[in-house]
């Protein structure tokens, strides 16, 4: 930039821009290399031979990839819908309200999945479903994974919805009630439409964390319940081909797209 600056820019510290650049290279370098090599036509992962979409084609014809993608979608979509609905209701019952008995405890419960280390949640959930199966003979199959995912999706869905509610003007609710809208209509016509960006942003985050989850899924999943991260894990334990890169690139793209969308939704209002 060729803008004229005062002789001493008081804000700048020497070398900080370089550090920021190093951080970006560190964060994006490996991802970009991985993505670029997904276009490699050769058989060996890191040995460049030429540009081709060959390994994407291989992935799309891989029956295991299909079933993993299907499982992932079933789990992520169900967990997103359930957790977002529950989180929306909870956010409404817990934000901008007169404190009710147990509110602080409720708040801690909602945030608990964020505080417990993932590996602890994973083994605890594994033990829980093992006990249920052993004691009552109940095994919900993929339902186990859906339940496990719903639990840790709730706080992620909750956060942006709560933030949106906190920004909202309470007098709008009063104005609607003043204009003859009973509570349910006030909710449907005023609160809910204004809450939509928060809900969408929350749902996007819930979907991402479910879609990407590896640790909990790996421990809780039964035989045949392979999700996309598990599929990749299985791939890297064999001699690898750039198919892993192709599938990894697809996974990354989904996350990046959803984060960007969620980010833009929340930015636009400000």
């Amino acid at each position, binding site marked *: 930039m060729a803008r004229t600056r005062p002789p001493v820019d*008081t*804000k700048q*510290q020497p070398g*900080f*821009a370089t550090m*920021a650049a*190093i*951080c970006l290279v*560190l*964060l*994006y*370098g*490996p*991802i970009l*290399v*991985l993505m670029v090599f997904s276009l490699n036509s050769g058989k060996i992962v*890191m*040995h460049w031979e030429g540009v081709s979409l060959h390994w994407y084609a291989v992935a799309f014809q891989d029956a295991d990839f299909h079933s993993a993608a299907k499982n992932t979608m079933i789990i992520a979509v169900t967990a997103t819908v359930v957790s977002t609905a529950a989180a929306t*209701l*909870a956010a*409404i*019952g817990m934000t901008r*309200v*007169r404190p*009710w*008995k147990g509110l602080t405890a*409720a708040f801690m*419960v909602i945030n*608990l999945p964020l*505080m*417990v*280390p*993932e*590996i*602890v949640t*994973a*083994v*605890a*959930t594994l*033990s829980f479903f093992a*006990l249920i199966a*052993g004691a009552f003979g109940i095994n919900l199959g993929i339902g186990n994974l859906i*339940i496990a995912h*719903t*639990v840790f999706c*709730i706080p992620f869905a909750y956060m942006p919805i709560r933030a949106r509610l906190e920004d909202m003007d309470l007098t709008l609710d009063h104005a609607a009630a003043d204009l003859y809208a009973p509570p349910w209509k006030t909710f449907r016509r005023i609160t809910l439409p204004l809450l939509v960006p928060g809900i969408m942003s929350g749902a996007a*985050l819930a979907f991402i964390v479910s*879609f*990407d989850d*590896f640790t909990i899924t790996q421990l809780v999943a039964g035989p045949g319940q392979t999700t996309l*991260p598990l599929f*990749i894990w299985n791939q*890297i334990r064999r001699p690898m081909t750039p198919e892993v890169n192709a599938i*990894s690139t697809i996974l*990354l793209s989904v*996350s*990046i797209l959803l*984060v*960007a969308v969620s980010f833009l939704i929340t*930015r636009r209002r400000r």
Partner: protein
Amino acid sequence: MVDLPVQAGSLEAEARKDAARRNRLLSSPAILIIALFGIVPLLIILVYSFLEAGPYGGVVWHFSTDAYVNFLFQQDIFSGALTFAPAFLLIYLRSVLFALATTVVCLILGFPTAYFMATRPQHQRNWWVLLITIPFWSNLLVRTLAVMFIIRDEGLINDILMRLHLISRPITMLYTNFAIELGLLYAFLPFMVLPLYASLEKLDFRLVEAAYDLYATRWRVLWRVVIPASLPGIVAGCLLVFIPALGAYVTPLILGGGKHMMIGNLIAQQFGSGRNWPLGSSQALILMAAVLIALFAYVRNTTGKPTNG
């Protein structure tokens, strides 16, 4: 909102009771889901940690404190004598060291980055935040895999160095402590930058100008003005890096190759090939206790008086 008590039986008391009932009802689905499928499992492993291990995994319903005793001691099969066995303790110490090192390096890299971001014009800042946010939400397994591709024996770095004839044989980086440390840094760097940025963004840069006006040098301004003012962000960032790094599972799994374990892998191993669920449960609870203590200390400190550095 301040909750003032009201006269019992008044219209207002009734209305408040109705509102409280409604709000409790609205919150109940989320609370119930987490309580039943999040908290009950934790109670189950609490119980498991006091039971005996089943021969093929699972538990035998006999009370036992072996899981906790075995954390530090090994019992002789024949004599029953306890001998000090620091294998687990060493893994815990390694994990703490890894987590600490990650926190320090993240801070060294993250602080200048966050400061740089906070001093950009508004529209540029939003893009920077998005750039840091994307890795934050990206698949950790895939990101770790990307690091692995680069540092493998036949990976990008060795490939380039060999082609340039700088080395004749690949440098072994994968499955070393270095690999784990690099992976942790890579995984948790955004966790440091974002809270630091949030705190630096609020910094009143007129303070910086005032300090320069009073003949402070760049370093002194940094040490005496900027860092004290952003201390809450530094503490939050360190905690957000240290806690997940301590319980890391994926990074050591892929980059440590089973040789260099951290607590997370130790726990998972007991539920897998180790077939000692009570031991795994006790380890999980010890990890969780450590994390909760750190969080509790943080909450206690932040809700108290603001301290000046």
